[in-house]
Structures are given as structure tokens and as C-alpha cells.
């Protein structure tokens, strides 16, 4: 096989493109610009860390099934871990979002990074709602019967029935986590490719 032939292979082209866009030193950097020194940067990594805890505790709940946590002390405790990691996840994510807003983090060709972040936020909200309506308790009964009216008014309730426990559980533990993880992965890769947005021009200096 000639070198030209190898160069034309899909695999070779994909590898070259991937390593060109994201060489190992960009993917796992060992230095960062000096301006990356603020507490606000903590909330991005805290969101990721909380997502890992959310998924870990969710996996444990999934192993024993949706009713286990009502019947077992340990199950209830794992549910509490799941709940609080979700609360931390959303808190960190929202602070991260507003921090990035005030940094104008879409500048310098980072528009898609911002947009994947917003879509991840929306996907997380839907994941949270499907979790709340899959609890198989009074909260899930009340929240689902309230939520149905909003979704039905848009026509969406015909296909996304919050009163259908099986459908909501599937969305909560399969479809939406896949979406959230893929979106988060893309978001993080984009941050690594483009780097952290630099500060605005110092207007005092410019003037």
C-alpha cells in the first residue's frame, strides 16, 4: 500500500484531523494563561465533578430498580446522595453560566462552546424533571400532574407524557443522560480546542 493510499484512508484522515485540532498538550494541558486565576473558574470543574457524582449515584439506584429506595435505608441514603449531587450540579452550572456570560466567553470563535453549554443546561433541566416525576411517590404524582398542563398546551404532551412513569424513567436513565454526557463532552472538547477566553481589552489602556 502506498503512502498516498494510507493518507487517503478515513482512519488516517480522522486521526490527523483530531490530533491537528486537539494535540495531546491541548487536551491535557500542563500550563494555563496567567489570567485564569479567579474563583469563578472553579464552577466549571465543579459542575463536571457533580455530574460524575450524579451519574455514579444514579447508577447505584438503577442497579436495584426504581422502588428500592422506598424499601431500604441504604437505598434512601443513595437517593439522598443523588438528590444533593443534583442540587450541587445545578448550583455550580448556573454560577458557571453567569460567570461565562459576564466574561463574554463566546468571543474569539467560541460561539459553539457557549451554545453547547446552554443546550446542556436545558437538557439537564429536562433530566431533572424526568427524575422528579420518576420518584414513585407523592412528589412525582404532584409534579407530573402539574407539569402535564404546560407540556400539553404546547402539543408536546401527546408524545412526552409525564404521567407515563415507564416513559419518563427511560428518558431519565437512558436518553437524557446520554444527551447530557455527549453534550458535556463536546463542550469540554471545545473549551480545550479553543482555550479559555482571554480578558477583554483593557479599555483604560486602549483609551
Amino acid at each position, binding site marked *: 500500500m502506498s503512502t498516498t493510499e494510507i493518507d487517503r484512508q478515513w482512519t488516517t484522515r480522522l486521526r490527523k484531523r483530531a490530533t491537528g485540532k486537539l494535540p495531546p498538550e491541548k487536551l491535557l494541558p500542563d500550563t494555563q494563561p496567567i489570567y485564569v486565576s479567579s474563583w469563578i473558574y472553579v464552577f466549571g470543574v465543579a459542575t463536571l*465533578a457533580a455530574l460524575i457524582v450524579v451519574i455514579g449515584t444514579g447508577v447505584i439506584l438503577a442497579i436495584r430498580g426504581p422502588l428500592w429506595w422506598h424499601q431500604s435505608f441504604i437505598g434512601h441514603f443513595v437517593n439522598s446522595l443523588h438528590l444533593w449531587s443534583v442540587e450541587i450540579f445545578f448550583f455550580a452550572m448556573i454560577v458557571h453560566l453567569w460567570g461565562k456570560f459576564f466574561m463574554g466567553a463566546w468571543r474569539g470563535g467560541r460561539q459553539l462552546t457557549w451554545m453547547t453549554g446552554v443546550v446542556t443546561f436545558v437538557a439537564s433541566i429536562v433530566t431533572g424533571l424526568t427524575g422528579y416525576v420518576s420518584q414513585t411517590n407523592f412528589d412525582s*404524582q404532584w409534579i407530573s400532574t402539574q407539569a402535564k398542563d404546560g407540556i400539553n398546551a404546547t402539543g408536546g404532551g401527546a408524545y412526552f407524557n409525564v404521567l407515563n412513569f415507564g416513559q419518563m424513567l427511560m428518558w431519565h436513565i437512558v436518553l437524557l443522560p446520554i444527551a447530557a454526557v455527549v453534550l458535556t463532552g463536546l463542550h469540554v472538547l471545545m473549551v480545550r480546542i479553543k482555550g479559555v477566553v482571554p480578558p477583554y481589552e483593557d479599555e483604560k489602556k486602549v483609551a
Partner: protein
Amino acid sequence: MSNKPFRPDVDAPEYKGGYSPYDIIKEGTIAIVIVAMLTLILAVFFGSPDEKAVTVKSWSNANPIDFAQTALEELNGTSGTAGYGAPYNHAAVGQKLGPLTLGKWVGVRIPINTVSDFIVKPLESQPALPGLQSALAQWNGASSSTQNGWVTSYTNAAPKMSYTNGQVVVNATNAGPVPVMINDLTQMARSGALDQALITGSGYYTTDYTKPLLFLADSEYFGSLADKQHLTGSQWGMMNETGQYPGQAWLWLYTFWYQIPPFNSSANADVLIWGMMMLLTGGLLLIPFIPGLRAIPRKTKVYRLIWREHYNNHE
């Protein structure tokens, strides 16, 4: 080299400053450990709520009159579900977003006939009870105008309904089989059999609780339980959960609109608020492309606080 002018809200200045050591793996590991510890502490100290689910059995035993009145509403078409419209039935046009009736356009995709699904079919699934079989035969053999006449007679007498010696009592005349049907459905509910009948209508295995939840949501009892837990719409509704827990606090903006005019009194509140939230979410998504909005961070100068060390070092 490009001669395009520098756009401060779109372009980022080229960074020519220094770099400091950064151990991304160590930072990530520490973050996971700290978040896991914080989660553990919160879970140990605060736990999580788990208020038992309401059943039709518990509802009808706690308040048989409310159950029987709700069953009557399902029969006479005045319940929330009976008059809902899409996606359950054709009883109403549904909410409008200006001239748009989105729910109606999508149509009836989860058909619910409250008379048949909540009353007649569950009763038919019962083993032979004295009087019930003949009452059902009478009901099924009658024309709809005759059925309506019976239901109207019963409805007119129903405000004086009582629950005496384990029986629903309504002094109605010319109500045909309706008194037997309502009373037997109440007995069925109190035994727990109606819970089962409402979910197994489409087969042995089921994970769909649409019917019992709609039936339950039509009652006053269910709403009163939610009210005690501060969960009703005027109490910031579904973003809360039972007990003193933060719930879905991130839904605050969505829930906020339901608290203020004109939404708190509008018949189209749901679709209006959903429409507005879609617009706001679209705006948030597209901020990088919207002149004016994308200039807010530069003009508010909050960034000087975030990067204060950077600016201090450069002044």
C-alpha cells in the same frame, strides 16, 4: 492578514502574556473528592423527602364523598379531565397562543373517555356483585339521552350526598343505574381494586399511570394534600417538593410567571409562559449573535472583578 476591524463583543484579543503551571488531572480529582464529600455531608444532615404516593384506595377511604363526587364529575363530564381537550379528548379547544391552538393541532394521542375508562370499564372488571351487573346492563343498553337524563337527575341531588353505613347515599329519583354505579365504584376504590383496574386496562404489564393520575388530579383531596405541603401553583408549584427541600429551584423563572398578572388569571397561562420561556431560552442560546445583548458583559464591566488580578498587573 485580515483587515477586518476588531469587534470587542465577538473577537477576543490575542493573548501575549505568560503561562503558569496547571495540573488539570489533579484539579479534577480534587474537585470530585470535594463535591463527593459535600454531597455526603448534605445527604447525612438533610436526607431526602419521600412522602408516600396517594392511591385511589387511600383517597376514597380518607374522603369517600370527595371520591364519589369526583367519580360523578367523570360521569357527567364536568371533571378537569373530561373537559380537558387534547391530547386526551375533543372536549375543549385547549389553550391558545394568539391564533395558534397547538394542542388541538397535535390532536387526541392519549385517548381518555372518562365515562368508559374511569367508571364503566373498571366496574365491568368486577366479579358479579348483587345489582351491579343489571345496573351495567341497564346503562349499556340505554341511549345516550337516557344516560344523560339519569346522570343529570343524580347530579342535581348530589350536593346532599352522604356516606352512611359504608354506602354512598343520594336521594335521587329517575337516576336509573347511576346510584348503584357510583356506590359500587366507591366500594371498589376503597378495596384497592380500582387502582389496579385503572392501570391494567391495557394488559398485565404496565408502567403507564396516566389514568389513575388524571382521576386523582381531578379530586379536591389531592389538591388539599399538595396545599398542605405548599406545592400548589400559587405557592410556586412544581419547583417545590415536600418538606423543607430546595426542589427544582432552577425552575424559578418558569414558576415566577405563574405568580404575576396577567398569567396568574389567564386561561392560556401555560402556553403563554411556555412560549415566553422558549423565546428567552432561544435568546440565551443566541446571545453571541445578538448585538446589544452580547455587549452587556463588556458594558457592565463585571469582568474587571473576575479578572481583577490581570487588570491590576496591567495597569
